[in-house]
Structures are given as C-alpha cells and as structure tokens.
C-alpha cells in the first residue's frame, strides 16, 4: 500500500511551527516510514499534489495565502491548523487595529529604518493585503486544531499518531497551550 501523503504550507507566520515539527527529532525517521511529505516549505515542489493530510502553519493575511489555503483544502482530506496564527490569528492580528493603507505605510515608508524617498508602496508585484488578518477557519473548513505558539513537538507527534491510527485527533488539555 502506498504511504499516505502529507502537504504542509507556511503562510503568515514565523516558521516556528515547522521548527517545532523538526523538533520531533528521531521520531521523524519513524514518521517518514509511514507517511510521505509530498509538499512543504523545505521541499522543492511547485504544485500542491492531492494529499491525505494538509497542514497550514500561519494565519491568512493576503490574497495569495487565501488562495493557497483554499487550494490545499481542495486537495486534502484532513486539514490541520498548526499553531496560534492558524488557529486564532495570532500575532498577525495586531494589524487589525489599523487600516491596511496605514499598515503598508508603516512597513514601507514610515518606519525609521526604512529608506524609501519616493514613498513607493507595493501594488501589482506583491499580493494585496486582506482587510484583516484572519485565522484559517474564517476562510476554509479546518478539521484539526493544534494551538500553541508553537505547539510542542510532542503535540505534533501526538496528532500524527492519532491520524495514522485512524482516529480524529483532539489535543488533550495536558498538551494544550496558547503561548
């Protein structure tokens, strides 16, 4: 039987959840005996293939991220939201208190360390910002939530084990964290 495929994407987040995933250490060897990582930020694959499990790290802040989230949802059977950004928006939500124009100005012209004498703002070359940074489940259906900033490697391993065992994982209180 072919190994089940997993695709993970890194959206609006710091990559901490993927770091935590790598922190599974020697358990990764065991994991990859049973699953195939078909798409991820650390593999050079251009198009998301059809997979059993899709994983999203990060919230949704621009149109590209929204597009990737929708694409992954359509290509996977089980969608996991990894980490606080994907689950509840996380630190990206700090920009929800400002208008998007102000966010762009702050980033591209107003910051003290920025040198941008003509005041050029990104337009066609960079994906447009959504009005608010949102958690993944505001755009697509999420099957499994793994909160934490980042979730512990143990928690990530637990979730994989549950799925491989044919169960629908629910992070227990002992592993749950929001920071």
């Amino acid at each position, binding site marked *: 039987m072919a190994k089940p495929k997993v695709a993970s994407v890194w959206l609006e987040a710091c990559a901490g959840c993927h770091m935590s995933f790598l922190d599974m250490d020697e358990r990764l060897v065991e994991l990859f005996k049973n699953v195939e990582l078909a798409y991820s930020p650390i593999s050079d694959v251009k198009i998301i293939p059809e997979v059993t499990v899709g994983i999203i790290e990060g919230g949704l802040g621009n149109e590209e991220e929204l597009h990737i989230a929708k694409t992954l949802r359509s290509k996977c059977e089980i969608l996991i*939201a990894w980490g*606080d950004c994907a*689950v*509840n*928006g*996380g*630190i990206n*939500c700090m920009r*929800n*208190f400002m208008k998007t124009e102000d966010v762009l100005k702050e980033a591209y012209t107003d910051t003290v360390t920025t040198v941008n004498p003509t005041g050029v703002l990104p337009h066609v070359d960079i994906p447009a910002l959504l009005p608010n940074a949102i*958690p993944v*489940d*505001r755009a697509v259906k*999420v099957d499994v*939530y*793994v*909160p934490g*900033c980042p979730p512990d490697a143990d928690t990530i391993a637990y979730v994989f084990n549950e799925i491989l065992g044919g169960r629908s994982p*629910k*992070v*227990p*209180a002992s592993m*749950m*964290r*929001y*920071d």
Partner: protein
Amino acid sequence: MSDKITMYIDGRECSGQKGDTILEVAKKNGIDSIPTLCWMKGLTSVGACRMCVVEPHGADGKPSGRMLTACTSPAEQGLHVSTATEKLVDYRRQVLELLFAGRNHFCMFCSQSGDCDLQTLAINHGMDSVRYPYLYSEFENDTTDDRLQIDHNRCVLCQRCVRTCSEKVGACTLGLKKRGWVTTVKADFGKDMGDSDTCVKCGACAQVCPTGTITLRELAYRGRRKNCDAVVDTICPICTAGCSIRVYVRTGSVVRVEGTNVDGPDGGQLCVKARFGLPKSTEQPRVTRPMIRVGSKFKESNWEEALELVGSKLKEGATSGEMGALISSIATDEELAVFASFKEAIGKIKTDSYESRVLRGFYRGIRPFSAQGVRPFTAAHNILSADVIVVMDATPQESMPIAASFIRVAVLHKGAKLIYVGSGKSPFTGITDVEVKDLSDPKVADIMKSAAKPIIILGKPLLRNHTFVTKALNFAVRNRAFFDDGLAIVPMLGHSNALGALNTVLADEPWIDTGEQDFLYVYSSGLVKESSLVLDSMSRAGFTVVQTPFLLPPMTNMADVILPAPAWFERSGHLCTLEGERRQVAKILPPIPGLKGFGEVMQILCDKMGVKMGVPSTSPCENVFTSKISPDQAKPVEV
C-alpha cells in the same frame, strides 16, 4: 426546625445549611467539579461569568435542560443537580469562546499567560479554537497610575477587583462604567486610576484579577507563579498586625509578595508597604563585608579586624564612659532576647528601641492596667466587629494600613459609626460621622450612649504621652469597650515587634534624646527609615557601630564600623503581633556568604569582654497576648 438541608450533586448526597448556595454546598462536601471564574472565596457572589452553571433535575429525575448559576442559586432540600453533563460542558466552552472573542485574549503577548484563570479554564474545557468572530476591542490602556496598569482589552468583567476593593479594602475605588461590550473598570465613577482620590494603592485588585487586565508594573514579567524557584509562606515583617504573606522567589530575588489569609479577617489583602515595599527593599545595596572608617572613607575589612576594634571600644566604654545600644523594633523575638541577655551580661550598656518615644509613652500609659491583669489593647481585626470606632489622632492609613481597611469596611459595610478626635482633620474623608477636638465633646457622649462594642484607635502623637494613653484607657473602661482578648484599644505601633521590644530593650528613661554616648551600637532592619532622633544620637556618639543589611545613608555615613546583618528575607524567628499570637517568620533566601547573625556577633563581643551571656530575665512575648482577668473587670485608674 433544623436548618440543615440535604441535596444531591451528581448523585452524591450532600449536606448544607439553609441559605447556602449550591456552590457552597459543593465546596463543603469536597466536590470540585464546578468550574468558577468570577466567584472568589470571601466575596459576594454576582454570577457574572456563567462558568459555574449546573443542571437541576426535573420531576422525571433526569437533567431538565435548565441551567442555574451555582454561585448564586440557593441550595434547596432534596434538589438534584448535575455539574458536568454534555450540555453544560458545551455551554461553558461557548461562554469561554465568547469571552475570548469579545476582547483581545491573545496569550502569546500577555504577562499573565501561565498564571491566568481564564486560560486554565479554556484549556480544561478543550477550547482548541474559537468559533465566533473576534471583535478586536480597542480600549485604550489605563497607564495613568504609577504602580498598576489596566488593559481593558483583557478584561472579562468578572468584577473580582471591584468587589475586593469594596468588600475587603473598603476603598470602593473601582466600579464599572457604561454597559454591554463597552463596559470598563474605572476608578471613582469614571476616572483613570492615576486620577483617583480614593485608591489606597494596595494592589489587591491586581492580585485577584484572573486575567492580565490589572497588572503591577514592577512585578510583571518577573516570572509566573508556577515558574518560581521557591514559594514561602511567612509573616509580613513591617507592622505589628503581622499579616500572612506569600513570597515568590525567582533566580535569587523576591519577585512577588501576595496576601494569603483569605479565611482570616484581612481576607488576603495586603497593604502598599508589603506588596510593593518588600520586593523593592530587596533591591537596595547590601552591606556584604564589615567596613571600618578611615578618615572620611570606609575601607573593606573582615570580621576579625572589625570585631576586634568594636570589642576594644566596648572595653574602653565599659571602664570609662557612656554606652548605649539601639535595636530596631523589627528585630525578631530571638534577636531581642539575645540583645536583652547581652545587656544583662555587659551590665553598663543602656538599651533602647527605635520608635522609643511612642513605645515608652504607651508602656507607661498601660502599666496601671497591665498591673490589674488585663491586656490593655486588642487585636486590630476586632475593628471589624465594632459598632463605634473612635479614631484618636491616628493615621492608620500610614502606620497600619490594614487597620484603615478594617475601619472603612466596618463603617461602609457593617454600619459602624466613626468618631474622629484630634487636632487635625479625619483621614477618613466622607465616612466620619463626628469630628471633634476633644473626647469631652458632648457629641462623643451622644454616640457612645448607644455603643455596644466600641473600639478606640490610638494614634502615634497620643502614644508618646502616657497621660493621654491612660486617659484613653479610662475612657475605654468607662464605655465598656472591651473584647475577649483585652480592652478595645488598638495602638498604632508601626513596627512589627514593638510589643516584644516593650518587654526587652525599651529603656525606662529616655537617654538617646540628650546624652552623649562614647560607644553606640545600632542594629537596623533596613526596612524603615531611621528617625531624626536616632540619627542625632548617632552624630553625637564618640564611636558608632552600625549592623545593617543594607547600605542606607545617612545612617551608614555616621558609622565608624559597619557590620553586615541578615535582611528580613534571610532570617527566621518569631514576632509578637498585636493579633495576640507569636507568629513565625520564615527564611526566604539563603543568607549572603560570610554573614554573621546578630546572636553570633553579640556572643563574640561577650567573649572579648570576658563575660558570659545568660538567659534574659524577661522574654519578649511576656504578658502581651492574654488577660489574666476578664477585660470587663478592669477599673479606671487615677491620672
């Protein structure tokens, strides 16, 4: 008819009293399956958070689908309730999700994360996501106060702070402003904290806050409670009320001090001195090694050299000259006893205590009553059960803030009357019934006529004069002001072991005011500023030894020899409290290396003098806790 009722919680038979709430019955019977958030032991229940809902059973014996808040619903005879049905758990999770969605509860950038009741509840309810859209509230932080700040965006409107401020502290500063989603916690009907006239800065609101809304600037981000290296329960070493405190230690320093005595009369509150003063005191520069004055500077020395010098000066003084020693009345019983036996061994040395004028006046004033076998004062918490409070020239908000809380609570919540007798203005603005200059004012007699349990608060200006003290005691006896433990007098003795100092080191006649000492030994706790009286006598002395934990000018500048001493967090021992108990203080941190305690230093000095330290003739806690005769037998005395 019996007041006992029997009800069933999750099928278990539980007994309680009529008038108990369902939650109280559950707690009494050891059932802890009802989660709570806004409820707090000792505060009025308001049912604000809806976490404690339980499901009563219908006539068919099955959960009825109705929900009751356990903290406010009275228990009834024969009532059956379930505490953890699927419906209840789901409902509670929804409540939590609504709380998280309503304001900005993002744990990753909150100083309370890990110490937060809201977070713990959410985790325990398996809240792995929030199904409601976040509202992203945009309240401005209230950073106007210099000690605490309020982030309204993290508030769940549980009103624990509001109720504590009113019911425990009696300040009634905090309240809610506006309604619905825009409700915020405000001071004095809408002011920012920094502009409040009534706030006493005790920080109790921050201690009870279940989220990161009210935080103390100085103590935030210094470690979560559970990450602390040590948590020590001890007694506050500052004033003679002897409140219970819990001290949190992290990486060798005191990072947080909290009140613990929730079941006691103080309800777990702490005053500004303990909550902020104690952690702050640990940051003062320490005296780590003995130092000897050379000209206008100090040179670092060692114990042998320093004590040799002190010993030789002591010998000189013993043969020709005046010798005196001053000991802080924050010293423990054990230190006071050592000091008393040192005095008896040396013989010629005079001793006295800090705050000696107040203590001497008080001691002389109460002596005729002590001689009758009655305890001429009472525990401060008895203020709470008084119906008339006579404040005589006292400023309890400064000298014993917990007593000020008791007074406010007694007046505001228990209907006590407040009389202020004194030359100034009453410190209890707005709640003082009568302000008079003298006890003989007819307005006083008018109120005292109907008083059943009066209590008298004696301020420091009066304590200095023994005639005033005796007069106040006569007034108490004539007005039948007494409690079980003694006459209803609460003296505003500022220092924690003032009562122990009375028995051991207090001089009968004042000597520090006038005389010039050839040899003066000063033992300081470093917790209170030395009075000008102490400093004056130091400046007049021929040779001054200061043993102190902290390098605190101007006192240390006047020394000829400075010796290190254990700080309040490095010593154990006992304190004689006004509350009628000898309470134990615990060692919180290991002492700095090479430290010699007070007893050891005294022993070495006695050895150098060739005298032996014996058992002192009086012990610190003698005759300060109980009356030999019933207090109502006390007779007035001639003034």
